[in-house]
Structure formats: C-alpha cells, structure tokens
C-alpha cells in the first residue's frame, strides 16, 4: 500500500507539527556540522541557532494561526485537531517563542556556548504540541515522554553547576516514576476496555456504571486514578510537588522560566481533554481528586512560599499555589469553570513571562549576575524606580488586586466555583490568596522600603527582555479595558471541547 494514500491528507493537516519536527532535525544537523567544523575553527553558533529557532517557532505559530482545518482526526485517530487543540498549540508555541527571546541575553552573558539548548527547547515544544492534540493513550505517552526527556536534560543543562546536575537527577528520577505510573494507568484502562482511543473510550465508558462487572469497573477507576496522579506529578500539584522547588532552584534561570510557563499549558490542556471529554462520565469519581489536590496545593504553595529566601524557589511555590487554583477550576467540572481555567491560564503565563523577563533582564553591572535572593533586590526602588514600579504592578497582579489582570483571572475562576456551589473550596481559595499576598508584598517591601545601604547597579536591560516586560505589563494593566478577545477565545476553546 502506498504510504501517502494510506494517510490521505493527514500530512497536510499536521503541517505545523511537521514543520517543527523538520526544523528540529535541520537545526540539529546544522549545529552539529558547523560547530565541529575544523575549517571554520569550531565557531560558537549558539546565538545563531537561537535566532533560527525563534524564526522557526514564529513560522510554526503563523502556520497554526492560519491553519484552515478546524476539526479533523489524523493518523487513524492517533491525533486530533480541533479548536481547543489549536488554541492550546498557539499558546504553547507563542510562550516558547517568548521564553527563547527572554533567554538570549542570559545565554550570551553566561557564555553557555552550546547550541543544543535551543534544540532541546524545540523538541520539548514539539512534544507538548503533540501532547495537546493527542487522541490516544499511546500518543499521550509518547509525546509526554518526548517532552519530559527534553526537560530532564534542560534542567541539568548548566554543566558547571552542582545544583543544576542535582536538579536534573531529581527531576529525572521523580519524572520517570510518574511516567511509570502513567504507563501503569493506561495499561489498566487498556486491559479492562481493550481500547486506547479517547473517543472510543468515551463511548464505551458512557453508562458503564452498573452495567459492567465490579472487577473491570474498579479496574478502570484504578487506571483513571493512576493517570490523574501521573499528570498531577508532571504539573507539580501538592502532594506530588516535592520535586518542583529543587528543580526550579537548580535549573538555569531561562529553563526555570520555561518550566514554570509552558508545560502548565500543555498538561492542563491534556487534563481538560482527558477528564472533560474521555472520562466525563466518571465525574463523581475524579472531581474530589482534583478538588482535594487543588485545595492542598493552594495551601502548600501559599504557606510554603512564606519562608523562601530565593526568588526561584519562591516562584516554584507560587507556581504550586497557582496550579492549585487551576485544579479547582478543573474540579468544578462545568463549562464555565473550564472557561475560567483557560482565562486564568492565559493570565498566569503572562504574569510569569513578565516576572521572569524582569529576573532575566536585570544583570548586575559588576559581574553580570542575576539576582538570586529576594534580598538582592533591596533598594531597587531607588536605583531604578521605573523597573521597580513595573515589578510592583506585576506582583499586585499576582496578588489578585483589581484592576490588574490577575484579579480577573481569579474572579472568573471563583465565579465558576461559586456557580458549582463549592463554597468551602472558594473560601479556602480566597483566604490562601491572602496568605500569598504576604510573600508577594514582601518583594515590594524589599524593593522600596528596604533599609539597607547596599546599592546594586544594574546593566541596561537588553532590548528583548525590555520589550517582553513592557508588553506583558501593558497586557496586565489594560486587560480590564478590552478583555473581549481573550474571553471569546477561552469560551470558544472550552465549547470546542465540550460539544
């Protein structure tokens, strides 16, 4: 049988993924050939590859945006393309692009000098892009492994640093463990239903309660639990969060930024597809899982961050808390809560982008180091007031103060939670956001009201980070004035999955 006729038009439909894949391979060969070329005296082509990566991500983004296909399932139902997956892909590729832009100056000054960084980011991006459109447990496992394996190497990327190696190893062991759980869960589901395809599973599982025998019913439940636990591991929700602070702290800062922004989108998109679509009939079973982990994550994240001294660790805990908010949106289990979750996700990644572009963009004048401790930011309000005020607004947004965007994210989420009549969850949620206010405000306090006489001068922020910081800040401040496009996108994406 001819290969092309067998898949029909499938290759045209997965054009963005194909392009990304080809770009990975070409850039890898380009890097290998040129960086080892004796003729050219072993050139350092890291930045070169970086710009090519950014370029190819941009092309992928435009391919995704202009994709004419709205709904289609390809490769024998292995992957699915619909409004929701396209939307998530745009988010993933776009935020990867911005992460690359943000890391350029860091890599230049730190002289990391190995081009594989960008190839790994591209591969991880490819994994996540496939992950959100996977329509089969096998495709899920394959793409999540592609993503995770790239992540392990990225975490350990700074070879000269002990912390980085430790972070990579920790991440690898716990990540491999959670992959094992995922594999076990999928095999349980396959064993008791004989199916791996999401759509077919959804059909078979509808109304299975009471019809099938107790053994296979419970088997499926155990399978679902394992899958849920594995994905909660990957996203860093309490009580499966213990890897997050160490990995975030140890990994090089651009990688930390990448970890705290992009995978959240991918895993939450997958969680939404899996639990709102495939396992929707078991809602009474999985709802408590997400609600309890969500509440626990909010508490652990907010309280754990109170005593952190390092910026990256603080952001790791804040990430756990934010995952908690998104999980209660997931656990509420309605279309409104899903819309709320997606809006929260968009605003969360913008806030993280803004914050990390600040962290990556402020290098000390003396030895171009980044700020490690919160106390390093002391007197920033006097040294660079404009920057300090920008960070203040980002942090107010993270606290959830109106009229910044962060408030609207929380508002839509809690509105959906109230509509689902989960009052206790909502009360714990808002109170933990008050606790979270403490440590965000502490950063503001250090910047403006610090009493130390220690003044650090910083280099002028590089153009890329300045651009990213200012545009994301613009988004955060003026979101309230024109939220329609984001609300509409989120609503359409949510409806696309549910209908």
């Amino acid at each position, binding site marked *: 049988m001819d290969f092309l006729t067998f898949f029909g038009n499938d290759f045209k439909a997965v054009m963005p993924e194909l392009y990304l894949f080809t770009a990975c391979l070409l850039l890898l060969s380009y890097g290998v050939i040129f960086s080892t070329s004796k003729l050219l005296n072993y050139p350092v082509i890291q930045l070169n590859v970086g710009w090519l990566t950014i370029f190819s991500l941009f092309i992928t983004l435009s391919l995704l945006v202009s994709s004419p296909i709205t709904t289609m399932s390809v490769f024998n139902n292995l992957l699915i393309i619909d409004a929701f997956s396209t939307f998530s892909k745009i988010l993933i590729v776009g935020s990867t692009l911005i992460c690359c832009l943000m890391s350029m100056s860091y890599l230049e000054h730190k002289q990391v000098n190995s081009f594989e960084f960008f190839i790994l980011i591209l591969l991880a991006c490819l994994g996540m892009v496939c992950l959100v459109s996977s329509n089969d447990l096998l495709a899920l496992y394959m793409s999540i492994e592609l993503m995770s394996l790239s992540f392990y190497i990225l975490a350990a990327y700074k070879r000269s640093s002990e912390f980085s190696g430790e972070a990579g190893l920790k991440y690898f062991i716990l990540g491999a463990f959670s992959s094992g759980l995922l594999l076990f869960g999928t095999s349980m589901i396959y064993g008791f239903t004989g199916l791996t395809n999401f759509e077919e599973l959804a059909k078979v599982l509808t109304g299975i309660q009471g019809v099938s025998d107790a053994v296979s019913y419970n088997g499926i439940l155990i399978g679902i639990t394992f899958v849920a636990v594995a994905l909660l591991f990957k996203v860093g929700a309490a009580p499966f969060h213990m890897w997050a602070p160490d990995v975030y702290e140890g990994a090089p800062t651009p990688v930390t930024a990448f970890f705290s922004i992009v995978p959240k989108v991918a895993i939450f998109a997958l969680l939404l597809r899996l639990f709102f679509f495939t396992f929707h009939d078991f809602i009474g079973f999985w709802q408590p899982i997400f609600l309890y982990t969500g509440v626990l994550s909010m508490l652990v994240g907010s309280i754990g961050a109170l005593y952190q001294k390092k910026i990256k660790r603080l952001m790791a805990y804040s990430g756990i808390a934010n995952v908690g908010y998104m999980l209660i949106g997931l656990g509420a289990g309605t279309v409104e809560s899903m819309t709320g979750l997606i809006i929260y996700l968009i605003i969360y990644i913008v806030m993280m982008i803004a914050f990390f572009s600040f962290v990556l963009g402020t290098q000390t004048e003396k030895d171009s180091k980044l700020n490690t401790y919160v106390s390093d930011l002391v007197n920033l309000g006097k040294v660079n007031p404009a920057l300090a005020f920008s960070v203040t607004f980002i942090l*107010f947004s993270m606290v959830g103060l*109106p*009229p910044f965007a962060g408030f609207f994210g929380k508002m839509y989420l809690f509105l959906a939670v*109230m509509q689902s009549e989960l009052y206790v969850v909502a009360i714990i949620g808002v109170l933990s956001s*008050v606790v979270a206010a403490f440590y965000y*405000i502490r950063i503001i306090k250090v910047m403006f009201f610090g009493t130390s006489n220690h003044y650090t001068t910083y280099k002028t922020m590089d153009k890329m980070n300045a651009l990213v910081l200012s545009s994301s800040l613009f988004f955060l401040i003026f979101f309230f004035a024109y939220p329609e496009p984001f609300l509409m996108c989120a609503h359409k994406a949510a409806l696309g999955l549910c209908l």
Partner: protein
Amino acid sequence: MFDSSILLSLVGLPLFGIIILFFIPDTNPDLQKNVGLSTSLLTFLLSILLWLKFDMSTPKYQFVEKFFSVPYSNMHVYVGVDGISLFFILLTTFLIPICLLASWDSIKIYIREYSIAFLFLEAVLVCVFTCLDVLFFYIFFEAVLIPMFLIVGIWGSRERKIRAAYQFFVYTLVGSVLMLLAILYIYAQTGTTDIQVLTTISFDYQTQIILWLAFFASLAVKVPMVPAHIWLPEAHSEAPTAGSVILAGVLLKMGGYGFLRFSIPMFPDASIYFTPLVYTLSIIAIVYTSLTTLRQVDLKRIIAYSSVAHMGFVTIGMFTLNIQGIEGSMLLMLSHGVVSSALFLCVGVIYDRHKTRIIKYYSGLTVKMPLFSMVFLFFILANMGFPGTSSFVSEFLVLTGSFKSNVFVTTMATTGVIWGAAYSIWLYNRVAFGNIRTSHISAFQDLERREFMVFLPCIFLTFLMGIYPEIFLNAMHVSIIHLIEQVQ
C-alpha cells in the same frame, strides 16, 4: 448633554492629569506639583457643578451613564449619583487638593509619583462612590489599596511604616475577599450585579444573614469597627500627613457608604437581625477607644483613636434605621471627614517643623504660635462636638435617632461625648498651654500663608455644617426616606 458626561469628566480629569504628569521631566518638580494641584482643583470645581445641578426632589440615581459593559455577562457598569453618594464625591474632591497643598514642601522624593498616586486615588474614589454595580464597587474598593499602600510605604515617616503598610494591606484584603465571594454568590444566584435590580430582589432569611456577614467582614474593617481597628492607628501614625488626611477623610467613609448603599437595602432583614451586634460593637468602640485615646503619647494616634470613636457614632446612627439616625450619621461622616482631616493637618504642621509627634516635647505653643493655636483649638472643639460646629449637629441627630430605638445604647453613646471632651481638652492643654519648654524645641514659626489657606476652607465648612446644616441635609432627605422605605 453636558449633564450626562459630568461623572465621566470627574473620573477622566484626574486621569488626564496623570497623563500630563508623565511628560513633565523630573528637573521641574514645581511644575509637577502645580499640575497635580490645578487638576485636582478643576475636579473640585466640576464636582461643585454636580451639586448645583443635583435634583433634590427625587430618590432616583441622577447623571446615570454607562461606563462600559463586561462581555459575555450581564454586567453593565452604570454610574450615577443620589443623595447618599453626592457628598462623598464632594468630600473626596475637596480633600485631594488640600492633601496636595498640605504636603507641598514636606515631600522630597518621588514628587511626580506622589501627585500621580493622589490623582489616581481621586479617580478611583469617585468611581467607588458613583458605581452602581456591586462587583465594580468591589473592584474600585480594592483598587484604593494600591495607591494607599504605596503612599504609606514610600512616603511614610518612620521605620515602623513597613509594618503599618503590611497591616493595612492584609486587614483590608482578608475582609474584602469574603465580600468578593458574597458578590460572586449573588451573581451566580441572580445573574446580575446591578444594585438597582438587586434592591428589588429579596433573598431568603438564611442567605441574607450569611451574605450580610460576608459584607460586614469587609466593611467593618474599613469603618473600622472595634475588633478590626488595629490597622488604623498604625496606618495613620506612619502615613505622611496627606495620607492620614485622605485615610481619615474619605477611606473610612467607604465602609459607611457600603453599609448604606449595599448592606442595608439588599439585606434588610439581616440588617435588623444584626442591629444588636452593631450597637454592641459601636458602644465598645466609643468607650474603649476613647479610654485608649487618653493614654496615647503620639499626637496622630490620639486623633486616629478618636476617629474610631466617632465612627462608632456613625454605625449606631446608621443602624437605627430611622431618618434622624441615618442623616445624622451621614452628616457625622462629612463632618468627621473635614474635622479630623484638619486635625491631622495641624499635627502635620508641627511635625514638619520639629519632626516629632510625641506630646511630651510640646508645651506652651500659644506663646510662640498664636495663629496655629487658634486653629488647633477650633478643630479640637469641633472634634468634641462643640455647639456651632458640624459635629454637634450630627452627633445630636444620631443620638436623637438612637433614642427612638434604644435608650440604653443612647445613654452609653452619650458618655462618648464626655470622653471626647476629656481627651480633646487634655490634649490641647498639654500641647498648647503651660510653660514654653525650650529644652527640646527652641525655634518656632507660626503658620505660613500656604498652611493657613489649607485650613481656611476646613474652618468655613465646619461652621457651615454647624450653623446651617439644611443645605446638606436637604439633598439627602429624599434618598434616605427611600432607603428606609426599602427596609420596611
């Protein structure tokens, strides 16, 4: 045509001023100050126009216009003014220029940002008092935190300001997130957050009680009522003078306004149910904080605690739910907004000169600062409710109103007047009379022209409200009668 855009201009003018301020270089601080002051003065003139055009014969919201709609929801942000909100807007626009003028020379760092903070505060406060939507009331109510936190934290006076800014922030946030949940619950249940619609909907008894408590958690922190008042003396004593003025003058009134606008008309049964609670807390506030005032050594803390006591009167008057009580509490809020602001300004005057607020360093100021002593005496008398000043009329009205509903409460509250006289007179005695002590402070300077011009409008208003309160009360009558009808 002009009528309909007057509220928009009231919000837009300060924002326009902020935009202009961004373009003035830091090398020209005087121009920055002048732009800030003139913008706020223009806004004040515009708000006078609002008062002139206000129709006193109807309880309807006037100057109603739609600011914007929230997409995909039933939220349309209307703004409008009635007899309850009119004077709060006037109070805000009246105090902002005074704040900017009072700190003309004492602010040395971030001068542009200082003006921006106050103009932003003005725009947000006008939105708070005009917004006819519960959710957006909450949004603006919270947005006030941002400039205020920065004002206390950046321009505050001592090391303790950090702690004060923290306390202010966290106390307010804890209370108000509960209110947010209540608002979201209301929206989930009724599908609207428009106050004009919500007052026509009656919730069942249990729901009302829970929602009332959630609103109370937020509003009582702002008022502040007694167990939640700890942040107030801290924030007041650490804030710069103008920060204290706006805090005492307007921010505390947001709590009272919230009760009148939302709690009482939306949850009438719960308001009646919880009246004993409010009375008890208010009496504790009056007696306890008055006694606390007697043993403070910091001038600003004394005035801060006396504010808590006065706000106790306000909440008693509000929950008598009769016309004398509510009008009295409205007038008391206005009067307190002027009088305690002026007292903070007085403290600011001597703080600017001598950089201390501890009473023991001051004595016999009458000898060297006669003009200041006169002004200070006037406001001290106004603060204790001297006949002829605004406080007398309003406290009298509150007590008349509460006498109708509960004699015991009135008796206890009346002792507050005595306590008020005790701490006010004693304070003045220590600061202004006695021998002049040159051991700590040797150089004196009386009020300069700028400072006197700051006090003059306050003195005028205090007399006006004390001698001829009808011009203020007339505008409120119809709205408040309408409010009482809603409760019954």
